[in-house]
């Protein structure tokens, strides 16, 4: 699964090289219709509410691809029925957080671990 931001820009500079995405004119908004996402900071507030831990500098391992990255580098999709945090290496889901009137639902099954600095 590849996000807009991760797509190569072949064809943009050389008019003789056809971009296979643009070739499919029937699907609108190929280049000008990115799906917005934020970085890991956007999930820090809700997670602070839950755990009182600043998670931005925490290091997490993606269960999907094994990438070990700082949480703040992850991709956060907040325009959704909940918050979805995805790995910036493979786009795999690291974390889902849904707030209902009575509960928080937190799924961290996409993380092998979170390493949190005790000094942080």
């Amino acid at each position: 699964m590849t996000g807009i931001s991760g797509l190569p820009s072949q064809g943009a500079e050389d008019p003789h090289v056809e971009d296979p995405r643009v070739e499919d004119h029937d699907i609108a908004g190929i280049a000008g219709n990115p799906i917005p996402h934020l970085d890991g900071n956007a999930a820090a507030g809700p997670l602070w509410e839950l755990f009182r831990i600043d998670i931005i500098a925490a290091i997490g391992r993606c269960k999907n691809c094994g990438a070990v990255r700082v949480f703040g580098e992850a991709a956060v999709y907040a325009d959704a029925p909940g918050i979805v945090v995805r790995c910036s290496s493979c786009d795999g889901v690291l974390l889902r957080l849904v707030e209902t009137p009575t509960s928080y639902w937190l799924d961290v099954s996409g993380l092998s671990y979170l390493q949190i600095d005790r000094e942080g």
Partner: protein
Amino acid sequence: MGIISSGFHGKRRTGNAAIPPGQHETGTFPVLTAGPAPYVARADWEFFITTEAGQRHAWSWDAFMALPQVDIRTDIHCVTSWSKLGTSWRGVSLDTLFEDVETASEFTTAHSYGGYTTNVPLRDLLGGKAWVAWEFDGEPLERAHGGPARLLVPHLYLWKSAKWINGIELMREDIPGFWESNGYHMHGDPWREERYS
């Protein structure tokens, strides 16, 4: 064919009787997504139905487009509280797609390109209630809204109308999908405010 499907004419704007409880009307079409929009060329697109017995039915884009096409005018309701009234779509009824499918199952899981899933009872997909839609407002469905094609189940909250639809899997039991496994309702009727489990 230009058939206007009955039952979803939603013109009762006076007093906002068309708007379910807890919803407000929007004139825009907000883009809500749980991740990057997968790019699926029509040449590569496929829609499948698999039965609980393992039978597989599949349509290429050309085969899908050769099926009877219908125009749909309907209201849509997102669980994040916006409703959009009188939207226009074109697509293929799930009744058409299920014509040759033999099943005793009551449950389904909708699968999207990109890995999204949502569970929808079969009774909510049949009987003129659901479509695989590829056109919105007379234009090809934008990728941000699920193009090349998305599921459209307008009588349920929009998270059930899976974008970038790839297929329907008939299930022996009701298995929660992407949001349902994180607190959202297994059914999602906006008129009953079935938002959360």
